[in-house]
């Protein structure tokens, strides 16, 4: 165990996390800004918006997940990072500005406006479950990193990481996360770049020796190709694009930062910075994963431990401390945003929406804080038992894919709570059957070859289109028909 490294990292995390939190609490007490905790008073500037959006989608799957995936399938793992680029295009140009324009605090609230309370609540409940699933994966990632770099027992490492995650968000909410993210994004990039350079220097011929290793064998030659093999591209790359790109732009954790933005133009502009910063990070992780697999002493440790053990063994102390701080920062940020997403959904959609419509902002904030603690404690206790990280994420994302279609059609075509209810019900049942029964065999395939994201995408779309064609409903909130009706009612008045 490297005690000096741990002390340096802990000092960094405590100074940044608690220091900024306390500063913001003191400042906010003077200002007393309404819904500041969950959506930062809808005044988040460009400087905070960019790092928060980037880091929310840059957590455990981008680091430990890509180490694992590149070890097993090679450079094609980069498509997980590219799937996030597609997600940012949709988030920054479509769903982010739309949600900001609707002035809502949760995705459930937006769907409540479109389809009514029952559908909105149903989606909030499902999204809470999905968000909780993501939270446990993020919690595990923090634990794996601390465990690998310190040698502490995994369960202790997860508890330490989880406690920091709670502190990260609990003290001041969205503004805290935004301010800390700005510092963390810089540290994260410095850490991963320094680690990549140091590892390259320890290799005889730099990264060219890694390439030579893979290209010397016909069976591993595809691993240096970003497009991999056709079957890998279909079962991994395209499947990732579908599940990440249709979950991310409508998930509570990822949309919370755009909902807090000062204006919609800012969200659109953010795309040009957020997409490359987030996407290119994957190159460093994939390169390190490929390198670990090419060195026999680490390759024999298996996909999960190879890259991290290589980093711990070969990095000098200061780089190790920087990397631990930055990886923890990235995982903690996603952990914090995800737990804040769970808390916000409960606070606004369930507590204020169902039980106490006249609740003050102070009461809602208290409820959010309590829920953050509860879900973090639950996630910490479950995190120990999770296996493949990216596989788990993709299954979890598939649940929210039909919500994307409902949101899109509800805004621009037609909305009927019956169609929404049936679409969600049918899609979620099919999603379960696809994973838990022999249904894929009826179509001559397997659940691994055709991942759940494809299934929920197609079933959700078909249900929405057929349902809207058959059932009468209200025109979409921003559809031409709704605008024409609005104009007509104004002229009649």
């Amino acid at each position: 165990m490297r005690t000096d490294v741990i002390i340096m990292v802990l000092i960094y995390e405590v100074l940044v996390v608690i220091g900024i939190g306390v500063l913001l609490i003191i400042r906010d007490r003077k200002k007393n800004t309404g819904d500041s905790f969950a959506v930062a008073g809808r005044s988040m500037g460009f400087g905070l918006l960019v790092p928060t959006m980037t880091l929310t989608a840059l957590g455990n799957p981008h680091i430990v997940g890509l180490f694992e995936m590149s070890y097993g399938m090679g450079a094609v793992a980069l498509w997980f990072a590219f799937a996030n680029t597609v997600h940012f295009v949709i988030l920054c140009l479509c769903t982010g500005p739309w949600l900001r324009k609707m002035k809502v605090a949760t995705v459930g609230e937006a769907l409540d406006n479109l389809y009514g309370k029952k559908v909105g609540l149903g989606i909030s409940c499902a999204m809470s479950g999905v968000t909780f699933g993501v939270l446990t994966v993020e919690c595990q990632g923090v634990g794996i990193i601390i465990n690998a770099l310190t040698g502490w027992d995994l369960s202790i490492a997860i508890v330490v990481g989880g406690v920091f995650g709670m502190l990260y968000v609990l003290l001041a909410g969205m503004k805290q996360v935004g301010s800390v993210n700005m510092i963390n994004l810089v540290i994260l990039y410095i850490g991963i770049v320094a680690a990549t350079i140091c590892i390259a220097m320890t290799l005889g011929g730099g990264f060219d020796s890694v390439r030579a290793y893979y290209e010397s064998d016909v069976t591993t030659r595809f691993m240096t190709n970003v497009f991999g093999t056709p079957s890998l591209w279909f079962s991994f790359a395209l499947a990732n694009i579908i599940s990440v790109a249709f979950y991310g732009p409508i998930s509570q954790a990822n949309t919370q930062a755009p909902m807090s933005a000062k204006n919609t133009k800012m969200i659109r502009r953010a795309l040009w910075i957020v997409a490359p910063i987030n996407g290119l990070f994957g190159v460093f992780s994939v390169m390190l994963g490929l390198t670990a697999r090419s060195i026999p002493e680490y390759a024999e440790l298996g996909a999960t431990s190879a890259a991290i053990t290589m980093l711990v063994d070969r990095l000098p102390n200061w780089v190790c401390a920087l990397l631990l701080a930055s990886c923890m920062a990235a995982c903690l940020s996603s952990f914090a945003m995800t737990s804040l997403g769970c808390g916000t959904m409960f606070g606004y959609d369930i507590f204020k929406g169902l039980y106490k419509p006249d609740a003050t902002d102070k009461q809602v904030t208290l409820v959010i804080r309590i829920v953050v603690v509860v879900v973090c404690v639950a996630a910490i206790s479950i995190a120990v038992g999770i296996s493949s990280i990216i596989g788990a994420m993709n299954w979890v994302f598939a649940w929210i894919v039909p919500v994307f279609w409902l949101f899109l059609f509800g805004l621009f075509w037609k909305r009927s709570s019956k169609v929404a209810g049936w679409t969600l019900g049918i899609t979620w049942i099919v999603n379960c059957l696809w994973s838990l029964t022999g249904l894929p065999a009826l179509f001559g395939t397997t659940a691994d070859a055709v991942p759940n994201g494809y299934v929920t995408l197609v079933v959700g779309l078909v249900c929405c289109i057929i349902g809207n064609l058959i059932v009468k409903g209200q025109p979409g909130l921003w559809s031409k028909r709704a605008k024409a009706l609005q104009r007509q009612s104004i002229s009649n008045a």
Partner: protein
Amino acid sequence: MFWMLFLKALGVIAVIVLIGEGVFWAYHAKHPIDDGDDED
């Protein structure tokens, strides 16, 4: 090898972003952007 991966990744990201922006502005060439009362 690192730079090869880096440049390919940059290229793929640029293509995805440009396609997104292209579709967005092509649509909004016919339908003006309505941001509502943008700032609170």
